[in-house]
């Protein structure tokens, strides 16, 4: 956030605003944002699916026999887990790719995915906690699944903190990539924690032998697809924001170098002055 604010506050490119003013209003609105045709389609599809999921999840599908209406939290809790897992998978992939070929694309993608993943893990913990009260009788329990999920959140918050450290860009990216690779182990631990240890948490919600009835299953699938669409929409936008920040940082560095060079020309070095012989102008 700190880097983003500093980037947005500095006026680094007068040519950018001049060229933007010359563009037509439609193309200007299109280009002066992180949206594109892809994100508009994805965003509208996500919102529509979310609206339908809300109708089915909160209205058309009925309560479950044991959990009653609290089962409706399933339609946002589990899809949030899926989005978080996928995002951390992208962070892992981006980190590996960055270490292999120093690609800034994958570096920025890993960072963007980690931020979205953290957001959705927070949703997982909040909805899980709210679901725990009516079903387990408590908001929180130091159960293997809950504890490992909290640790996963902390690791990726640490990853985001590392990305904000005041270090040379390459060093920061390399260290973040190593952490992005190591952190995936925690995701695996979270996923299998209900199998490896005795847990209060139920085992995987969805499998071949699922016991959900038709409308519940439909609402659940709608939730998964809607959250995946919204997660992808957020990821593309977050990546583009990161890309623009990196571009502005480069421009700022180029301007600083030019200024430094001009300063050098305006004020000759002491050595140069000493070499001027009497009679020379």
């Amino acid at each position, binding site marked *: 956030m700190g880097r983003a604010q500093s980037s947005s506050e500095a006026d680094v*490119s007068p040519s950018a605003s001049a060229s933007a003013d010359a563009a037509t209003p439609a193309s200007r609105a299109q280009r002066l944002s*992180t949206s594109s045709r892809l994100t508009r389609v994805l965003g509208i599809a996500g919102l529509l699916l979310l609206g339908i999921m809300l109708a089915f999840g*909160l209205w058309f599908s009925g309560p479950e026999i044991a959990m*009653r209406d*609290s089962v409706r939290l399933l339609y946002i809790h589990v899809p949030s887990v899926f989005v978080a897992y996928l995002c951390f998978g992208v962070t892992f992939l981006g980190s590996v790719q960055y270490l292999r070929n120093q690609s800034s694309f994958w570096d920025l993608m890993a960072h963007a995915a980690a931020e979205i993943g953290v957001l959705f893990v927070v949703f997982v913990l909040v909805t899980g906690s709210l679901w725990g009260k*009516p079903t387990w009788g408590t908001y929180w329990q130091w159960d293997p699944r809950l504890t490992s999920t909290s640790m996963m959140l902390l690791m990726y918050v640490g990853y985001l903190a590392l990305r904000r450290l005041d270090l040379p860009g390459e060093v920061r990216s390399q260290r973040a990539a190593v952490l992005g690779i190591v952190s995936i182990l925690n995701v695996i631990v979270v996923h299998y924690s209900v199998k490896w240890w005795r847990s209060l948490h139920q085992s995987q919600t969805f499998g071949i032998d699922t016991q959900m009835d038709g409308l519940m299953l439909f609402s659940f699938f709608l939730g998964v697809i809607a959250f995946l669409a919204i997660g992808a929409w957020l990821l593309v*936008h977050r990546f583009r924001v990161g890309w623009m920040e990196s571009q502005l940082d480069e*421009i700022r560095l180029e301007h600083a170098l030019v200024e430094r060079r001009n300063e050098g020309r305006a004020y000759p070095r002491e050595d140069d002055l000493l070499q001027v012989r009497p009679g020379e102008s």
Partner: protein
Amino acid sequence: MHWEFVIPGYIIVLGGIALYGGLLIRRGRRLAEQLPPERRRFLD
């Protein structure tokens, strides 16, 4: 029954997504205004 847990859950999640998405769009617009067109790769 249990709606007192369901409704806050939906508000937090959907509100959180809307808030984060809105902030992201605003941040993107501010940055895009400063970026020269030739540097806007990945935006089209």
